């Protein structure tokens, strides 16, 4: 059951449809505003021999041209490891690395100043991909290991052993709103920052550090972002710090909004992975051993690469109980922009590995892959301990599988596909069912905390401040609903404020799908505090009106914009009247709230513990038709059943599931980042980098939320949603592989990688057709 009482529409819906919603670039600023520009490295790796900014600085209308020497504080932006200079000093380590900053009256003047900068580079050797990094031994940090059981023994005892490797590609975030920041200097050292950031507290900390001022002088405000998807978790800090440096240097408001091409060139992407595996399994389809090595391309700096690797490792077994497993993870250092968080945070890469293994095992055993998946699912009572020692509780896998296999008419369609494939030589259809089991919580356990500040005003309206940021995921809408439900007032009386570090301090990034879980509880906590102060006021108020003392605070209920005595429901007062009365009685109508996720903990070094508060589950069945001569494919039908507990807002949650799937679809099919041999990104605009358009979505798209599965571990029995559905798109990827596999009657493992671009598909189809021709030749002799 969904949470009742309000199916609230998007809290900014009215603003969005009328064009009045403000993003950073839309904030009105006076004539004083200067345009900021970043001058970046054209070399993937080079030494800076010399530079001269004098000519550029003399251009009238150019107010500042800054190098690292002009940074008053620390020249450092690394969020975890301090290995990322704000502006390059003597060396550049990737194309797109910031070297100089310009503030001028117009964009045109910025360009003229850039052209007037003299700089001499001496190009150095580059490392551009995982293979080159492996050869050079270029690691970003120590190797990580995790596992359980005895893999070697299990491999030697298994009936069959398969090994291989899989490559997954980079993915550009392509948030519609590029990185943007507006900085307005206040009095003395104050800096007011408007930033499109998922992590205002970290942005605040880094702005303070580069300016060399304490954090209480920096205020970061985020009204909303035009999409983020992880791309603004750490890397929004850069634009904010650059802007702040220029505002500080000029004493005037400065705005930087990256042009699309620059944004794509300068910022990190989803980590490409090279996954090597060896698996042992038996003829019944049971996987008994898995040895997996996850190699990621971290780029030039650490950023969040190790946390992402950790999540990849924690999802390397996805929904399957594999008794003997060993997982090794490495982050390789290359001369690319530091790769960063992206929806799923390593989960997609980890899952792609195991889902491909299962697919291969099924083909080898000539079984339906869905059956092999079911055979290996985590069990309810037994076989339910993950490689890292956490029990899979409230396991929904079997429940979802049974419902989805039935509602998607899986078996009937499987037969139809076989008939179709026999009848068509150049069009092949394929189908795949894939599950998702995704752990919810930051794996860096202390980050699982959140704060809120709730103000009630005398007119009975409520202003909610919380530490989360709105990027389209509907967090503010859900916070508004939670505050309204808890206060028993209508949502129109609640407004969610822009996220502001001066209202709620020391917050975690809005990430890991945990925004609602963490901030929702903090909001609830603040509301509870205020309600507890209002209860005695209400009891006293009602008693005074009735001239007795029979109403007691334990019986006070907040509902329908009123506050009443549950024991004598005719004794009631409006919420507004009550808060006015409380004010007159000198009772505080404002409170902070706080929440920390209980009972989680994780020993990173031992690879053991309870990193997650709970798991989110989902499953998808995708069917595709592939033209094997061109590689063109279309999604015929997609059925999804996803678990969000008791949905706080089904419209938002379904939107997240569909949107996650569509974004994942881009990752597994059309989105391919290509670099040349110099490390230049070749496709840095939507002309050449193809995210899904309306023409790419499934013709028949059936998304359902799992009913009757409340989650005892989160706010109002709901579940996190943002990331998990992204990985449901692996079903589309494996459906394409299944269609290709039909070319050789499922006898041969198709060569395959991710994304399955038209090129990958055509090459695979050619190889399979060639193999058949060879076989026929041999057979003919």
């Amino acid at each position, binding site marked *: 059951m969904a949470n009742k009482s309000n199916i609230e529409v*998007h809290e*900014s819906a009215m603003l969005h449809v009328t*064009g009045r919603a403000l993003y950073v670039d839309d904030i009105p600023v006076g004539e004083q505003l200067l345009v900021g520009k970043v001058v970046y490295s054209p070399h993937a790796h080079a030494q800076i021999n010399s530079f001269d900014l004098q000519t550029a600085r003399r251009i009238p209308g150019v107010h500042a041209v800054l190098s690292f020497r002009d940074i008053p504080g620390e020249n450092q932006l690394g969020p975890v490891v301090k290995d990322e200079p704000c502006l390059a000093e003597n060396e550049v380590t990737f194309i797109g690395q910031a070297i100089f900053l310009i503030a001028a009256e117009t964009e045109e003047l910025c360009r003229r100043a850039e052209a007037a900068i003299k700089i001499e580079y001496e190009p150095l050797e580059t490392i551009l991909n995982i293979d080159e990094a492996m050869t050079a031994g270029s690691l970003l940090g120590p190797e990580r290991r995790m596992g359980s059981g005895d893999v070697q023994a299990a491999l030697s005892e298994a009936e069959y052993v398969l090994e291989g490797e899989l490559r997954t590609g980079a993915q550009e975030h392509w948030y519609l709103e590029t990185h943007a920041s507006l900085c307005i200097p206040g009095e003395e050292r104050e800096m007011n920052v408007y930033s499109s950031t998922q992590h205002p507290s970290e942005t605040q900390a880094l702005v303070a550090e580069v300016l060399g001022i304490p954090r209480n002088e920096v205020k970061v405000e985020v009204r909303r972002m035009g999409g983020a998807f992880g791309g603004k978790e750490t890397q929004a800090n850069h634009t904010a710090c650059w802007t702040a440096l220029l505002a500080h240097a000029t004493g005037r408001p400065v705005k930087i909004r990256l042009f*699309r091409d620059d944004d794509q060139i300068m910022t990190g992407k989803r980590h490409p992975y090279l996954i090597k595996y060896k698996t042992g399994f038996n003829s019944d389809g049971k996987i008994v051993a898995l040895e997996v090595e996850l190699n990621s391309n971290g780029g030039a700096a650490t950023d969040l690469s190790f946390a992402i690797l950790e999540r990849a490792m924690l999802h390397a077994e996805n929904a399957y109980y594999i008794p003997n497993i060993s997982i090794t993870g490495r982050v390789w250092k290359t001369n690319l922009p530091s790769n960063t968080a992206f929806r799923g945070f390593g989960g997609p890469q980890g899952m792609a590995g195991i889902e491909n293994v299962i697919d291969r095992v099924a083909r080898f055993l000539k079984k339906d892959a869905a059956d092999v998946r079911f055979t290996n699912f985590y069990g309810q009572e037994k076989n339910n301990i993950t490689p890292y020692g956490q029990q899979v509780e409230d396991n929904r896998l079997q429940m979802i599988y049974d419902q989805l296999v039935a509602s998607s008419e899986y078996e009937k369609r499987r037969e139809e596909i076989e008939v179709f494939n026999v009848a068509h030589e150049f069009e092949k259809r394929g189908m795949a069912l894939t599950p998702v089991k995704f752990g919810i919580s930051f794996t860096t356990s202390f980050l699982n905390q959140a704060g809120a500040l709730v103000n009630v005003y005398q007119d009975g309206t409520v202003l909610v401040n919380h530490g989360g940021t709105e990027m*389209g995921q509907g967090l503010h809408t859900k916070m508004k609903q939670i505050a309204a439900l808890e206060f028993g007032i209508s949502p129109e009386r609640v407004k969610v404020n822009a996220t502001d570090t001066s209202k709620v301090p020391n917050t975690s990034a809005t990430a890991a799908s945990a925004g609602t879980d963490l901030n929702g509880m903090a909001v609830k906590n603040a509301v509870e505090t205020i309600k507890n102060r209002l209860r005695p006021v209400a009891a006293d108020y009602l008693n005074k009106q009735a001239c007795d003392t029979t109403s007691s605070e334990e019986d006070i209920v907040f509902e329908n914009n009123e506050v009443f005595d549950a024991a004598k429901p005719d004794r009631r007062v409006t919420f507004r009247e009550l808060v006015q009365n409380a004010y007159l009685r000198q009772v505080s109508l404002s409170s902070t709230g706080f929440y920390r996720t209980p009972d989680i903990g994780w020993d990173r070094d031992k690879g053991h513990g309870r990193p997650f508060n709970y798991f989110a589950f989902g499953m998808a069945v995708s069917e595709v038709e592939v033209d094997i001569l061109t590689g063109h494919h279309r999604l015929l039908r997609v059925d999804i059943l996803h678990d969000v507990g008791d949905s706080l807002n089904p419209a*938002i949650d379904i939107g997240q599931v569909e949107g996650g799937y569509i*974004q994942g679809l881009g990752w597994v099919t059309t989105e391919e980042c290509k670099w040349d041999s110099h490390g230049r990104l070749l496709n840095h605009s939507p002309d050449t980098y193809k995210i899904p358009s309306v023409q790419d979505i499934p013709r028949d*798209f059936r998304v359902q939320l799992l009913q009757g599965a409340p989650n005892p571990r989160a706010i109002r029995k709901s579940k996190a949603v943002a990331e998990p559905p992204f990985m449901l798109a692996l079903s589309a990827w494996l459906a394409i592989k299944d269609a290709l596999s039909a070319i050789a009657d499922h006898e041969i493992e198709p060569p395959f990688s991710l994304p399955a671009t038209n090129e990958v598909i055509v090459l695979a189809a050619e190889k399979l057709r060639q193999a058949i021709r060879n076989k026929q030749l041999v057979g003919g002799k």
Partner: protein
Amino acid sequence: MSDSHRKKSGISRRTFIKGLGLSSLGAATLSGEGLKGTLRGTGLLPEERIVPADGTEATFLVNGRKRKVRIEPRTTLAEVLRHRFGLTGTKLGCGRGACGACTVLLDGKAVSSCMTLAIDAAGVPVETIEGLQAKDGTLHPLQEAFIEHDAMQCGFCTSGMIMSGKALLDINPAPDEQEIRESVSGNLCRCGTYPHVFEAIQAAGSKSGIRKTK
């Protein structure tokens, strides 16, 4: 802009290109409208479509309101709308007419305002997202439908989506599935709200109650 290259009789092609600047040259090569750009220097376009390198006063007709501003030859319609008129509902997503976030209606047709030179829009009716709501506050059926069908997440593509939808519904109030898909096929949404956008346009179309006459 210096006007030292300016000829007495008008503008040399060299000055025109110089004045146009790099971004508009991109426009000239990439968009259909670009043809006009290349014709302009040849004198094949009416005089009022020529902007001297040092700029000119131009009158715009935005959402039914006349506004006069000084523009340079390189100025795009998106810049005029956002920076001069404060109509920031029109968004800049890619700056090269490939994402649709800056879609506005120019004489009823959906165009990428980042790829439209401001001078080409002078005197021609321009409709932006801000012009859709009636003065009394009544929403356009498309705006209502986008709210009702939850056809937005981050909202950054929403105004462009609605304007593309309006361009379609204005000439074809009851479009079929493929027509709707085509109408917004140039509008990217990274949040993946496409199914809802599709439903919203369909609902707004049928709400108008007029059947397609073909």
